[in-house]
């Protein structure tokens, strides 16, 4: 299934940060912390959405990029997280802080249920199982919503933390930042362990991995459960950020968005997931701003202006096609190549090779 030259988990991703990388990480962390102080409330809100998306993007990359399991179920798991919050915090009136872990556990359980057939089905058939999961979950959510008579969806009111109500986008930004950082660190840790190497071995050749003594079924199931749990967390945070849970927020295009995040950002790369999440979340905003610069009054403009959503979709679809065709390593691949070419020009030391992880016993 895997071809050489296509993206792999690299040692740079697997081994911990080097001094330079540690410095870069520190800078990123500081920028992420002071960002809301500099940005307005709308851009802080977008920042929160991006950080929330990072959790989902990392989860999808873990499942598909690292373990090679193809899933169209992202929106379904987000819905499980979102509806868990809606039911517990809004319908039952219990605490959001209780709803959050329940959302994670519920999504993990659904992941376990869906993961079992994935042990029997491979490749394209798994695409279809997860597609079926998507339609089943969305149908149940829709039915529940109709049953409750909430056509417009469920309102999620901001919870309090240590007596402080998380009412502003800034508060929710910092909550998203903390949880996104935890999710990324957890995945980085997981990938450095035996589990991470087993995921990659399962992806590269599961029959061979089985011969080497790796319990393929157990690791596939583990990948499913971990990624579903993270998607559930992402869905719960999304519900809080949006202040609303409704079935329209979980259509198939949302699942595609979360696939596009690691395709565009970089398959089997945590840094790629982060960049891809930001890219896909902010693209519609950028497209809307750009359309504002097209001269008004022209027939082309009025046609495009009436179809902002579709213009965005065309650009989004074209980007997916271009990255799959021309840059399978994604934005992070482009970036690494740029850094390497600049580095090799500056010093005689030649490009630092990133070594593909071999299947290890």
């Amino acid at each position: 299934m895997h071809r050489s030259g296509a993206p792999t988990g690299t040692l740079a991703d697997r081994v911990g940060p080097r001094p330079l990388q540690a410095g870069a990480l520190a800078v990123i962390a500081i920028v992420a912390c002071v960002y809301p102080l500099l940005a307005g409330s709308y851009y802080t809100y977008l920042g929160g959405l991006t950080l929330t998306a990072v959790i989902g993007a990392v989860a999808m990359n873990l499942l598909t990029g690292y373990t090679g399991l193809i899933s169209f179920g992202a929106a379904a798991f987000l819905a499980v997280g979102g509806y868990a919050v809606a039911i517990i915090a809004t319908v039952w009136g219990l605490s959001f802080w209780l709803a959050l872990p329940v959302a994670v556990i519920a999504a993990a359980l659904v992941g376990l249920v869906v993961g079992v057939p994935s042990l029997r089905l491979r490749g394209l058939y798994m695409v279809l199982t997860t597609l079926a999961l998507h339609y089943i979950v969305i149908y149940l959510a829709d039915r529940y919503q109709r049953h409750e008579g909430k056509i417009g969806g469920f309102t999620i009111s901001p919870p309090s933390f240590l007596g402080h109500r998380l009412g502003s986008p800034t508060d929710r930004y910092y909550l998203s930042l903390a949880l996104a950082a935890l999710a990324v660190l957890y995945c980085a840790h997981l990938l450095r362990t035996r589990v991470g190497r087993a995921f990659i071995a399962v992806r590269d050749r599961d029959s061979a991995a089985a011969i080497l003594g790796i319990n393929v079924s157990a690791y596939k199931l583990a990948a499913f459960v971990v990624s579903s749990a993270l998607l559930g967390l992402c869905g719960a945070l999304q519900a809080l950020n949006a202040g609303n849970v409704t079935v329209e927020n979980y259509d198939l295009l949302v699942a595609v968005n979360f696939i596009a995040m690691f395709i565009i950002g970089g398959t089997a790369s945590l840094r790629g997931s982060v960049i891809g999440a930001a890219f896909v979340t902010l693209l519609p905003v950028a497209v809307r701003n750009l359309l504002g610069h097209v001269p008004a009054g022209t027939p082309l403009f009025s046609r495009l202006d009436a179809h902002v959503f579709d213009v965005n979709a065309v650009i989004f679809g074209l980007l997916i096609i271009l990255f799959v065709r021309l840059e399978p390593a994604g934005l992070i691949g482009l970036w690494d190549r740029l850094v390497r070419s600049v580095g090799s020009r500056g010093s005689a030391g030649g490009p630092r090779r990133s070594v593909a992880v071999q299947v290890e016993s």
Partner: protein
Amino acid sequence: MHDLLQTAESSLFLAAIYALVAVGFVILFRASHLFNFAHGEIMVVAGYLLWTSVTRFSQPFGVGLLLSLALCALFGAIIYLVLLSPLAGAPLFSVVILTLGVQIVVDALVRIIWGGTVKIFPTPSSYHPVRLPFDTVLSTTQLLAIGVAAAAFIALFLFFNFSRLGVHMRAAAENPLLASQSGVNIPLVFAVAWGLAALLGAIAGIVYANNAHVVSADVGALGLRAFPAGVVGGIDSIVGVMPGAIVVAFVENFVTRYWDPAAKDVATFGTMLVVLMIRPYGFFGSKEIDRV
């Protein structure tokens, strides 16, 4: 009892549409071993192209029909030659995602070009109810769709068994390397397969729009529901498409008629899930062999 029979008969119309789209999925799978997520969109494109040539360019219906079908077939072949064939040997996932990108672009372009509004289908055939035994009714447009699907399947049978190109296509699907060594032009044969799949999808789109009396960009969702039909029959089996389409269409129609009209997607994909659990390769599909 009468209601049951009527629902069953209406399911035949839906089955005909699903069969025409699903056989395209099967042909594409046999040629390129992938699921083409953009395939359902060809139904939409065919309808709008026909509408444009008849309404905007004042062509007779027959000319518009031929033009629309030809352009759709060409479109399918071009998608293969430009986007898919260079990806031969790439990971499965990349290829599937690429077709998803194509689907998003085509869907959005259709909405931008044709304004995302429903157009009246310029149908020359008029709508007549036809009385059938037990006091049930099908319309002429529904019967036409069933007839077209039946004719298309007979033509496909003849094509794959008696034409040189059809036999080459089967050979190429079974073993591309051996086939190419026996003188089969693989890129040509695969491009024809993509064109043929698109043509069948376009026919489905047009007979569907003929019955609905409108051309709509939302028909792409119906095209996606033809997926389960192909999978239930066996994704590499052309023989399996008809039974697969009939099963899926019947389940969908009975579920929406007697349980919940909003359960279309769940009914079709749920049926597929159940069949896959019992027979992982569908009714007539062949087992995939995993070579280390």
